């Protein structure tokens, strides 16, 4: 067994010294920390969670390639038989969504990014379209069905 004798206390000290350096030079930015605390207030109570079941960026099977500025991204969410397909297109500052509820049906739709909520309607065929989105994570909320049988669904948050 060759090599110098290792002194674990030296390793521990060095690791701790590096930890202090990293905390000083690249710690969690305070606004992000606060946003994480605030995330708690945005959880969708009393709504079913529609999980992300397809992301063309990850699941398409193609090798990762350089993205062109106008390339669209396809996302699919699913909650107990209700599906939402979303097409995200546009460049960084002008991303828009085109959505489709499956099975097709009208709905009240909310696009939420942090504190900002935009209300839309999905037509009788379950189609909806958003205006330009800001950067950062977003989620969609839906209210479908009739007054007697209303269903509230919210998608997972995702950053696009």
């Amino acid at each position, binding site marked *: 067994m060759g090599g110098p004798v290792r002194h674990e206390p*030296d390793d521990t000290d060095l690791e701790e010294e590096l930890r202090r350096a990293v905390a000083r030079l690249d710690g969690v930015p305070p606004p*992000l920390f606060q946003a994480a605390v605030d995330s*708690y207030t945005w*959880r969708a109570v009393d709504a079913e969670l529609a999980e992300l079941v397809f992301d063309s*960026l990850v699941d398409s099977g193609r090798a*990762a390639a350089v993205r062109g500025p106008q390339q669209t991204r396809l996302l699919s969410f699913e909650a107990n038989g209700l599906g939402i397909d979303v097409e995200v297109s546009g460049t960084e500052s002008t991303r828009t969504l085109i959505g489709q509820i499956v099975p097709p049906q009208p709905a009240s739709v909310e696009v939420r990014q942090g504190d900002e909520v935009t209300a839309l309607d999905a037509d009788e065929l379950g189609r909806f379209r958003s205006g330009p989105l800001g950067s950062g994570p977003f989620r969609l909320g839906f209210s479908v069905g009739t007054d007697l049988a209303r269903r509230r669904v919210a998608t997972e948050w995702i*950053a696009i």
Partner: protein
Amino acid sequence: MHPEEAGRLVSAAAAGDAAAWKELVESFSGLVWSVTRGYRLNAADAADVFQTVWLRLAEHVGRIRSPDQVGTWLATTARHESLRVARASTRIILTDSPDLLDSGLSDEHSPEQALLDSEQTALNIDRATQMWRALGQLSARCQQLLRVLTATPPPSYAEVAAALDMPVGSIGPTRARCLDRLRRQLVGQVSRTS
């Protein structure tokens, strides 16, 4: 944080306790941030992933299968979302060579800048900056491991393993090798400038 305590906080947060949630953020935000930076995301992408991870936990806090392993859940989610965003980023990494890569550890540090800086006198460069630069000279694998290991508060090896998709058993030996290289790099910095 002891897993039992973490589990207690998760249960409390699931039941509506905002103070418990804040304590979770305090305990694990360092880990989540370190994972994003360990994956070489720039500040904007790291911010997106960081926010997404915490928004996801807020949603899942009542559904986690193993509440006392929430640190591992966060590390795994940070890993998946970092990889997702890295694919979406227009800055595509084509090589693993540390010479060609932006270190990703800081937007201000390029390998070229690091080279120029090292030729200056080191007398007025503080220890933290020395450590940071030395880290930037290590292999991509060592940079990533050490970046995640040195989160504040220190993560468990299970959390590191989840963040980096490596076996828990390999963390100890790799850590030792990487710290050794870091130590040599620091010694080299001092001797180059004296």
